[in-house]
């Protein structure tokens, strides 16, 4: 037990809490019974303040380990503290891949459930929660095995519930069978936003994985120029000398904080330009490793230090298809504001889950990385909130660190259902987080 200052991956808004590492479901129960405020934490990859709790108890889940053998149907039971990286290392050699992976392998299964992470296959496969068979949830009022058929409201409130319904200690999920460790990737370069969006609308259904990197710093005719990469797992007969090897670990570490001004409009513009130029105009069926296709940033440990002492915010929103213009409006707002932003990630989304805090909706999602520092940034993001809200969209809570409470409530109209479930399972309001307090997600 120790007092530690915690923050998210964006390294903003630190707060101090008592940190423990429970070894078992029993430990978690004991902690919940002796605390007035508590939350679970995994590997700290939420960008904002979701896995911290000022003055409270933070339960780091990494000791809740264990990976069962994968049964012939692809079902595996894992401890909530197991990372996606560990799961891939264990299962890929046996021909099983995780059904959904976010942009980093360094998240725990518990965190993946709490944030209901999505990957490049959301338009086809949905989010992490869609592949869960059941989970064991420790709450202040007891321990429950929940699934889509057993206590479904509690199950779906926990999926994407930001840890506010309890502590997941174990989960059973269905893995994806793969024949090789390669992905066959098609790459295309687009001169502007409209052309890449229309290609994604017409062609994404032909691929399991699809993602576009959009340059938000170009204006005028080339506004929103983009690189679209799409792919599928390679079959054995599609690659020479097929293997099933886990991805390599990171080879580079950022050893200390870069100066805060390192990522400024000029250097970011240069980076975006280089990224765009480096991509082929068009390339088909290029075999890529799992690491380089799914988790390019995992190659550099602690890359968040590149943003300097003041850190960065990530802004990700989803808007329905009917409001696709909101994507253009937001990129326009951003490029006109001259606030520096790295290549944005644009994806198609499918259906969300039945949970009250479910983020995805059929349509578009755009994620932006923005260094903290420019005086105009807070207001620019407030303006983006209004665009998203007017479009009937919402901001992703796992990445948020600055949304205002009343807007969060408007973006998640079923939040009251979620809050009611929380109140039933945790009548004293023990489960909380800095995020929950900031956005008033739960009723006290």
């Amino acid at each position: 037990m120790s007092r530690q200052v915690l923050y998210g991956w964006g390294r903003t808004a630190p707060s101090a809490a008592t940190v423990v590492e429970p070894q078992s479901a029993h430990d978690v129960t004991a902690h919940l019974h002796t605390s007035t405020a508590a939350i679970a934490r995994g590997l700290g990859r939420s960008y904002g303040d979701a896995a911290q709790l000022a003055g409270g108890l933070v339960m780091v889940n990494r000791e809740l380990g264990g990976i069962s053998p994968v049964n012939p149907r692809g079902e595996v039971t894992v401890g909530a503290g197991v990372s996606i990286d560990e799961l891939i290392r264990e299962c890929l050699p046996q021909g099983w891949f995780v059904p959904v992976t976010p942009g980093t392998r360094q998240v725990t299964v518990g965190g993946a459930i709490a944030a209901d992470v999505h990957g490049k296959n959301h338009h086809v496969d949905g989010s992490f929660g869609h592949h869960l068979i059941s989970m064991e949830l420790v709450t202040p009022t007891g321990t429950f095995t929940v699934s889509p058929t057993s206590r479904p409201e509690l199950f779906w409130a926990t999926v994407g519930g930001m840890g506010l319904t309890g502590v997941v200690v174990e989960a059973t999920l269905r893995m994806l069978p793969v024949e090789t460790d390669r992905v066959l990737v098609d790459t295309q370069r687009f001169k502007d936003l409209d052309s890449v969006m229309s290609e994604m609308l017409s062609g994404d259904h032909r691929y399991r994985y699809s993602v576009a990197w959009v340059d938000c710093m170009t204006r005028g005719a080339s506004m929103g120029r983009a690189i679209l990469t799409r792919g599928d797992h390679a079959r054995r007969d599609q690659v020479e000398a097929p293997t099933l090897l886990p991805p390599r670990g990171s080879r580079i570490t950022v050893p200390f904080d870069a100066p805060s001004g390192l990522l400024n409009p000029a250097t970011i513009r240069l980076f975006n330009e280089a990224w765009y130029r480096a991509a082929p105009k068009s390339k088909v069926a290029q075999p890529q490793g799992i690491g380089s296709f799914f988790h390019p940033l995992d190659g550099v440990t602690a890359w968040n230090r590149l943003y300097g002492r003041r850190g960065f915010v990530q802004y990700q929103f989803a808007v329905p298809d009917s409001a696709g213009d909101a994507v253009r409006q937001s990129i326009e707002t951003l490029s006109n504001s001259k606030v520096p932003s790295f290549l944005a990630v644009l994806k198609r989304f499918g259906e969300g889950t039945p949970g009250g805090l479910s983020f995805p909706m059929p349509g578009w999602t755009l994620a932006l990385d923005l260094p903290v520092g420019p005086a105009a940034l807070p207001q620019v993001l407030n303006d983006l909130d209004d665009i998203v809200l007017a479009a009937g969209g919402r901001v992703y809570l796992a990445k948020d660190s600055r949304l205002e409470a009343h807007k969060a409530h408007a973006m998640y109209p079923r939040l009251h259902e979620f809050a009611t479930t929380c109140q039933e399972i945790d009548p004293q309001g023990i489960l909380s987080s800095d995020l929950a307090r900031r956005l008033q997600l739960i009723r006290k």
Partner: protein
Amino acid sequence: MENAFGQPHNVIVLGGSSDIATAIVRQLVAARTRTVVLAGRNQHLLDEAASSAAAHGATATATVIFDAKDPDNVAATIDACFAAVGEPIDLVIVAVGTLGDQDVDENNSASAAVTATVNYTWPVAALSELRGRLIAQGTGRILVISSVTAIRVSRRNYHYGAAKAGLDRYSEALAVSLEGTGVSVQILRPGFVHSKMTAGMKAVPFATTPDAVATVTVAGLASGERVIHAPRILKWVFLVLRHAPTAIWSKLGSR
């Protein structure tokens, strides 16, 4: 809770009718702050400051009355302020202070004691009270309003200046003591500011206004710099002046 940009949701101001603090609060509520608690001596002035905060965007305001001449009321005053917010406190602005009357203070020990108490003893007792409470909540910032005169005390108002110097040095060390607790302390050192406090006084070079000080302060809160000078150039001016030979300093100070 504070957001990623260091913008507080709630603020307590000790010395709530201070012109500088009022200007800072106006800018904070225009951005994100919604709850404002103002503590001070004069209900009428506090009400005016509260109305101004509400007019600029605060949705909840409260006032607490205390007199900084009496350090015995520190705990009760801070209790009342925390209770009025009812959630973890994001920012406490310590704006308590009085210029006093140098001529009277020089010749009247009772008056000198009051100037020292209001500018040093009460604020230090308040900071001591805040320290434990903020450590327990694991988050929070304190902004101490000092003065550039704290860098080098001037003949013209040394009762005030020396007390501010004490408060400034105390706050610097307090900031160090709070590293690793999730709580931070920032010090604002304004130069000559046209305000109620300086009404009728002859302005000195680099004189500024409460609004200009507030703009620099809000930027400084966001960046997290430990000492904020307003206007910014005074950081460099006083870097030189603090080492100026006494003969020159006396001449400047007696103007």
